[in-house]
């Protein structure tokens, strides 16, 4: 089943790549450092038999993919896989703050609005979730930038760190070691907490943007799941036993209501990790998402196709992890 989806995903992406002209497709196969791009393309067409029928080419492409060769990216002037590896830490910095916030706020507000159904908390959080769900993310991002950076000057206009830190890190005299590639953590490991604080300062607005947009869905799902659970007979039983309201809500209802939310959170985090295309572009954060947009602007097809295939793979894996996680949340599944 899982294998089937994985194979299907690669076939679908391959069909999409086949729609591109042959010169563009050739870049998918190029690897190693190239200096003469036209010659490399001509070589690749011959070497990988790019004029052969569809199914012959698919095997060639798939074996390249399995060997970790995703082609040559013109925009970042390096191998696609290296480019993704260097850009991804920036995305990770945002997700590190955004994901826990989204999950906790979503669950908290969802539960509160379900137990105070039609009360003021419910009305406010429902309105919030509808509005959050309806706003385009570039709109939220630009609005935050205009207000908090443009008018109030509390936060920077964008970027992932102050310029002086970039030059500091680039200077070999400072012996800055990239242990993890994530500047947030490297700052601490190098004994430069000021860098970490600087990165956090740059993260605030992007994180708020992501949370505003993505928490909405979680609140809705948590609320309806909680409402459904609260109407189950075992909740009535628990109340009839004379348990306190707190125990009924948090021990009996919330735990059972969390099950659909777990799937959603898993997919959400997977989605965040694959790059926040719009948010990163608005804030110029330089992560995977912004690199994708740069690739689109310059028609860097190998990067886009590699990105497409990788996101799908990540989603499938996230699905698998969520399925495994179910066993911990829902004991009934363990018994089966």
């Amino acid at each position, binding site marked *: 089943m899982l294998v089937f989806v994985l194979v*299907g995903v690669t076939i679908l992406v391959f069909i999409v790549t086949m729609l591109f002209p042959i010169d563009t497709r050739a870049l998918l196969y190029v690897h190693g450092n190239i200096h003469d791009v036209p010659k490399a393309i001509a070589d690749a067409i011959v070497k990988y038999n790019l004029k052969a029928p569809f199914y012959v080419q698919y095997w060639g492409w798939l074996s390249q993919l399995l060997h970790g060769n995703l082609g040559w990216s013109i925009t970042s002037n390096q191998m696609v896989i290296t480019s993704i590896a260097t850009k991804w830490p920036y995305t990770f910095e945002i997700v590190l703050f955004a994901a826990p916030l989204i999950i906790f706020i979503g669950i908290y507000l969802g539960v509160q609005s379900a137990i105070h159904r039609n009360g003021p908390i419910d009305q406010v959080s429902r309105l919030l979730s509808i509005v959050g769900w*309806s706003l*385009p993310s570039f709109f939220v991002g*630009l609005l935050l930038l205009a207000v908090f950076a443009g008018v109030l000057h509390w936060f920077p206009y964008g970027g992932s760190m102050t310029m002086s830190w970039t030059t500091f890190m680039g200077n070999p005299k400072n012996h800055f070691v990239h242990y993890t590639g994530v500047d947030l953590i490297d700052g601490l490991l190098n004994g430069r907490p000021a860098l970490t604080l600087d990165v956090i300062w740059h993260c605030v607005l992007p994180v708020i943007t992501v949370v505003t947009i993505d928490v909405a869905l979680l609140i809705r799902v948590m609320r309806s799941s909680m409402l459904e659970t609260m109407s189950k007979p075992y909740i009535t039983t628990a109340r009839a036993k004379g348990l306190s309201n707190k125990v009924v809500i948090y021990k009996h209802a919330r735990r059972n209501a969390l099950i659909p939310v777990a799937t959603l959170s898993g997919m959400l985090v997977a989605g965040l990790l694959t790059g926040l295309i719009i948010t990163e572009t608005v804030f110029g954060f330089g992560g995977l998402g912004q690199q994708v947009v740069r690739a*689109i602007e310059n028609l860097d097809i190998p990067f*886009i196709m590699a990105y497409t295939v990788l996101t799908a793979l990540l989603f499938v894996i996230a699905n698998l992890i969520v399925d495994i996680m179910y066993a911990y949340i829902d004991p009934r599944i363990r018994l089966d």
Partner: protein
Amino acid sequence: MSLTSRWEDFKTGMRPRLSEWRFMLKRMRQSNLAMAGLIIILCFIGIACLAPVLAPPPASNRGDPWIIPQDQTYLKMIGPNVPTPPTVQHVFGTTYYQYDIYYGCIWGTITAFRVGLTVVGISLIAGVIIGTIAAFYGGVIDEILMRFTDIILAFPGLVLSMAIVLAFPEAIPLNLSELFLGISAFFVLIFLGLKRDRTGAIWVAGFSVILVFSVLTYLYHPLILALNIGKLDKVLIALTLVSWPSYARLIRGEVLRVKNEDFVEASKASGSSDFRTITRHILPNSIYPVFIVATLDIGSVILTAAALAFIGIGSPPYFPDWGQIVSNSESVITNGVAIVHNFYTFFIPGMFIAMFVVGWNLLGDALRDVLDPMLRRR
């Protein structure tokens, strides 16, 4: 059976359904949020209908309403790279290439309806047909169709539609013979796998004739139609390809729930064809959740389309489309201090998008409360 008695039959059959609708309307009218959503949508419909009056297309574009007027005097005086703030002449200001924002927002309403309704409409129909067939017949057909939806659902919507928009050629030579060949072969296979009664045989015969015909034309003289595909059409195609599987999934679950109920058995036992059983008995009892999701989806389709436009793969710069208007000035507003001066370039079209989506979401949310039998009678 005479026509009048059929009509009487129909009326008695419809009576419970009509009272159901009346009940829903009553519930809708009681909910403030639903009415707010409805009013917002009606306002947008009004704007869309009155677009030629509110923003008449200028003579300079030869009456083509789908080109935003560009202010030539500004272009000469200030140049294309500075948006101009609102004036009497341009109520909402102009964008990066001196395109009038007011005109774009008004005509963009029609684009928004076009994108939302086309994408959701087509993917709803495709999804419902595929999902119902999969659930009703089960077995191999179900396996194949559902694995296919699994594959598409494995991608994040924005990413896959991005790739499809980029890969889709500007003009495709559409081989009609090939298309008919594929479609008729598909239906012949499907109907061969179904109940082998008289109706089934008629369908197979019908599609086989088309199949033979298309094989012949394919071999001797393929009918090729050159289709020109505009930039917005590509977005529509990509979004439709990406969004039908969720409907197929949803309706499949609902049909599976209903298909073993007694009334379906009764319908089958009394000799109705599969088609009649599905359309008269199964779908009316399983389609409501799909409508709820579809209403909510119109909003999210608009958001995805706007996001695509923002990253530069939407319509051309002159096209009246809300996302595209913001995208025109992107290089100025994402570049530091200028964002405060050029506030209007993203705020006004952004508010149009937000209000449109809020309207549909409020409506969908209320529909869920009204239509969902689990929630409503409380």
